[in-house]
């Protein structure tokens, strides 16, 4: 790396994220003032409780854990659904082949 170069340049993505963060901040403050985010607090409280229960100091880590658990269950669910569909597709293919044979023999 050349000397004197800024290791943290401000590019378009940085500007975008700063603007987006400010927008989010304003939005949240606005919603809190209008008392529309009670559920949000409830979820935060839940995560707090969950993390203290498991002894997790860093709360985003608890959030990730919950997310991973949900994804895992989702994947399981999908594999069950796919197995079921495969069964049905096989039954369809079998039926098609037998009907096709019957059709060609009748002609």
């Amino acid at each position: 790396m050349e000397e004197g170069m800024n290791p943290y340049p401000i590019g378009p993505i940085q500007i975008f994220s700063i603007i987006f963060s400010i927008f989010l901040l304003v939005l949240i403050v606005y919603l809190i003032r209008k008392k529309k985010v009670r559920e949000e607090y409830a979820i935060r409280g839940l995560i707090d409780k969950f993390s203290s229960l498991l002894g997790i100091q860093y709360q985003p880590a608890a959030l990730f854990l919950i997310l991973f658990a949900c994804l895992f269950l989702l994947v399981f669910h999908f594999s069950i659904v796919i197995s079921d569909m495969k069964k049905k597709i096989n039954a369809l293919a079998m039926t098609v082949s037998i009907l096709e044979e019957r059709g060609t023999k009748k002609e």
Partner: protein
Amino acid sequence: MTWINLSSILFCVYLEAVFFFKKLMKLLILIPAYNEEETIADVIQETQKSFPDADICVVNDGSDDRTGAILKENQHIISLHLPFNMGIGGALWTGFNYFCQKDYEFLLRLDSDGQHPPSEAAKLLEPLIRGEADLVIGSRFINREGYLSSQLRRGGIRLLKLLTTIIMKNQITDNTSGFRAYSRKAVCLLTEDYPFDYPEPIEVYLLHRNGLRIKEIPIKMTDRKGGVSSINLLRTYYYLIKVLLTILVNFWNGGRNESVSDRSHSDL
């Protein structure tokens, strides 16, 4: 008095013979084929020569080559064309379902690569016709003649043999042999919940669990005439692990059979 006896005995013999041939007439020969354009025509011809009265059903398992075209040219056989490749289990399952929808009595399974000489097949049918067994397996290892597969696969087969001996208290020497004949009862039972991936050893296990009789007969196999085996080195291991897992899961289930009555093909 003796005259009547003699005539009645003759009549019985006659009836038996008629019964025998009638039963033999209701034989379906099932040949699953996947990319076997080189050998399939010869195998069909040979089979027709050995069993002129039987119906031959070839399941074309979504072949990419000319197998389908060759089958469509032949008007004397039943050919089932699967819209995509379902694997050997799917092809067999399709043939089994066709069998159950018609009034066949026995099913003989042959390979499409010429490994199973039809001339040996009559030996498999004998115990079925006599009503001694519901599944007859042609075993390479009783007399150790003909084609015996590779070293590695033989090891796997031996492991399976050990396992079946432990679980079923019934020694099956060639559990992966696809040279088999089935009674109607066995076929219709297997269509209910067929093991799709590598069906042969699990077939044996399922039938045993349901109290059907299994018999082994020494036969001679020949090496394949063309094409490549669907099971390569890596798959040999996969095959073994999968089969062991399935048998263990089934064993753990303790013979509980899933209900399959909701499958819609029964009203075809």
